[in-house]
């Protein structure tokens, strides 16, 4: 069997595994978010928080909950890093300097997990486990809560309420993420991912001398890092480090974990709006994009264009041998078409077009299948736009799932879609044009520009992967990527919740003969077109200066 066949079979195995869990997990999440009963541990939390989990919230109240929790999350995580030097159990690591601590706090709370530090020498057990890993759960659950609130906006008629934020948050953590993460962590530990609370290991070497590496609660963090599409690695090399991703099987399993919840959420959506076909249509659009990107990535990486891969006889720079080109391509596409940003290969050393694909995957808004929750709500906003475009063509008032898409809805959708490109292009232009930012790029020419473009695309889309040659450990990049992550996460949430509130207030109108059938393959095709044209074309000039110039040279 050749490496190409192996890559294709891995892709098919992945699709099969996801298909197997699609219905059970999707239905489970639908039950979780519509259940009347509370678990005992959940009641304890509500009592301590002082929240009534059965109180319905309108969209401003729901949004205030999201913002307050996230603001406190940033402050707590910042304080924890600043105090690390005085904390026990940090293996002697000092406090993190202020700009880096701000950047990292924002990064983990916004589900980005951009990392401008070496995990090995910067973060001790306490910050990793009780700080960073906690936000891996919480930020993911917040994304899921916002998505569910939008789905309720479609599903409810004339109420104006979207559910209870505290209940959605706590249930997402306790009933969805925790059980999945516990099982996944043990599978990873069986493969060889480390899980201990030891200090620095000093291990003898074959020819004498010793190696020193850190232990840590890696498997438990790795599981939720992928399940919650977070992506912040325990070690600098992230999922390329053998202690995070030791075997070919663990690699495929990690790609599976990345895709699992975002894919199954389309089923949850279908169940909650009362038509699983609607979920299939959204999933279909996601699947078309994901398969196309994977095929293109494998093609360019196996073809290994570019001077260095040609000289080496293969695009193996920055790739681990055990994963090979097939496994690395699957991971690279899945991590950038979701908001994960974990990497099992160095994206900066992908072929010119391969790097461009990783970049474009994020630029499309991470919708195939996207981050946990954020992928679903971004795709639903895109669906609103797609029915609007279709409505323009036939001259009818557009409807989606029985809700009229009027001026207010389309304005909110447009604002949602404009936030990220505005952030990416403005900050990239400033970094390139201003004299102040230090020269931070590693590679010359078009690739150097792509490093900067990639950084802000990754930050504003809350991805977190990097063309890591860029030295982002400077005050300029800490501040600007920090702002891009913050605004790129929470401004879209404002527009999504406002849209949800507006939809929930409307009376559901029955479908007529003239209603666009949105549960059909044709609509999935329209959705793909809307994603590619609206998001892709926005970035075309910037892509031409970077990866296209490099890849076509």
């Amino acid at each position, binding site marked *: *069997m050749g490496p190409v066949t192996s890559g294709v079979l*891995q892709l098919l195995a992945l699709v099969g595994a996801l298909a197997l869990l699609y219905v059970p997990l999707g239905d489970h999440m639908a039950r979780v978010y519509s259940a009347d009963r509370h678990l005992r541990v959940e009641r304890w939390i509500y009592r*301590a928080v002082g929240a009534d989990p059965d109180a319905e919230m309108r969209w401003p109240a729901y949004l*205030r909950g999201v913002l*307050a929790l996230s603001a*406190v*999350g940033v402050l707590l995580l910042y304080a924890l890093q600043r105090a690390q030097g005085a904390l026990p159990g940090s293996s002697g690591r000092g406090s993190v300097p202020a700009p880096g601590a701000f950047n990292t706090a924002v990064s983990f709370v916004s589900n980005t997990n951009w990392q401008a530090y070496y995990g090995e020498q910067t973060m001790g057990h306490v910050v990793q*486990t009780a700080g960073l*890993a*906690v936000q891996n*759960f919480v930020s993911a659950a917040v994304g899921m809560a916002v998505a569910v609130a939008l789905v309720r906006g479609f599903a409810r008629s004339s109420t104006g309420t979207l559910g209870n934020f*505290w209940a959605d948050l*706590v249930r997402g*953590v306790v009933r969805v993420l*925790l059980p999945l993460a516990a099982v996944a962590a*043990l599978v990873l*530990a*069986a*493969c*060889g*991912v480390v*899980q*201990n609370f030891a200090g620095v290991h000093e291990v*003898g*070497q*074959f*020819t004498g001398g010793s*190696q020193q*590496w850190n*232990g840590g*609660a890696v*498997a*438990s963090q790795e599981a*939720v890092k992928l399940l919650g599409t977070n992506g912040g690695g325990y070690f*600098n*090399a992230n999922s*390329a480090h*053998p*202690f995070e991703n030791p075997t*070919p*099987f663990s690699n495929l399993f990690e790609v599976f974990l990345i895709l699992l919840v975002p894919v199954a959420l389309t089923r949850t959506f279908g169940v909650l709006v009362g038509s699983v076909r609607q979920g299939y249509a959204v999933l279909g659009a996601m699947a078309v994009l994901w398969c196309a990107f994977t095929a293109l990535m494998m093609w360019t990486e196996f073809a290994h264009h570019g001077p*260095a891969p040609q*000289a*080496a*006889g*293969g695009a193996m*720079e*920055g790739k*681990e*041998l055990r994963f090979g080109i097939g*496994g690395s391509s699957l991971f690279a596409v899945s991590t950038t078409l979701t908001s994960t940003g974990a990497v099992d290969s160095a994206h*900066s*050393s*992908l072929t*010119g077009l391969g790097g461009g694909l990783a970049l474009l995957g994020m630029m499309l808004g991470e919708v195939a299948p996207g981050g946990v929750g954020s992928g679903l709500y971004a795709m639903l906003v895109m669906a609103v736009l797609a029915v609007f475009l279709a409505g323009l063509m036939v001259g009818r008032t557009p409807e989606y799932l029985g809700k009229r898409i009027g001026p207010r809805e389309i304005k909110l959708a447009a604002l949602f879609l404009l936030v990220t490109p505005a952030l990416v292009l403005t900050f990239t232009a400033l970094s390139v044009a201003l004299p102040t930012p230090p020269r931070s790029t*590693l*590679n010359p020419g078009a*690739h150097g520009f792509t490093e900067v473009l990639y950084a802000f695309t990754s930050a504003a889309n809350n991805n977190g992967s990097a063309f890591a*040659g860029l030295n982002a450990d400077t005050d300029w990049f800490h501040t600007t990527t920090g702002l891009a992550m913050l605004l790129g996460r929470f401004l879209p949430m404002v527009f999504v919740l406002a849209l949800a509130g507006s939809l929930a207030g409307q009376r559901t109108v029955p479908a007529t003969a003239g209603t666009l059938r949105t549960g059909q393959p044709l609509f999935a095709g329209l959705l793909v077109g809307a994603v590619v044209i609206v998001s892709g074309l926005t970035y075309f000039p910037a892509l031409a200066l970077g990866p296209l110039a*490099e890849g076509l040279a």
Partner: protein
Amino acid sequence: MAHTATHTARLLGASLRALLLLTLVTGVLYPLVVTGAAQALFPAQADGSKVSAGGREVGSALIGQGYTLPPDGTGGTAAPDPRWFQGRPAHGLGTDTRDPRHELLLSGATNLAADNPVLVRRVAEAKAAVVRDNSVPGHPVDPADVPADAVTSSASGLDPHISPRYARLQVRRVARENGLTAAPVARLVTAHTEGRTLGFIGEPRVNVLALNSALRELTAESRG
């Protein structure tokens, strides 16, 4: 105004309590339970898959290492020891700049672009070195036979594997340096070649530490 301020303060207080409780659940209980279970079920893996050979610890099965000659005292980079199979280049490894008491391995890639002249030169130099080091009288190495993994750095800098092709390419040199014939060394490589998991996941590979450990035994036997 005062009403809004009170309301905001109450909301922030609720958020703080929620986060502290979720920290207890997901940041303390969850990792402790997983650690307990992993240490009970998979103790060797949970502690880093350490390997012992000949009665002493020689490394981790998962972490690559250098097989180099003792430092010559000039302060340069240690030269590869021709008696042992060599792993992949690791130009992306970092050095610990924060902690004076330790020399932690800092994983990483070179991040050099496919069109970067530095990388092109490095690949060419590595290829020339592989050809030079592995050519033995009567059996020169053809540069076209040098596989990509032999001349490129991995993503972590800690790749413990090489391709079976790169291992076979080193057989004659290794045999000669250890005073062995090529056949038993080639058999060693075949015995240590792992196929794809379940026949299709990942790439065929050879763990360099395991191969060198077996080679050390073979050499000791032939001398004994």
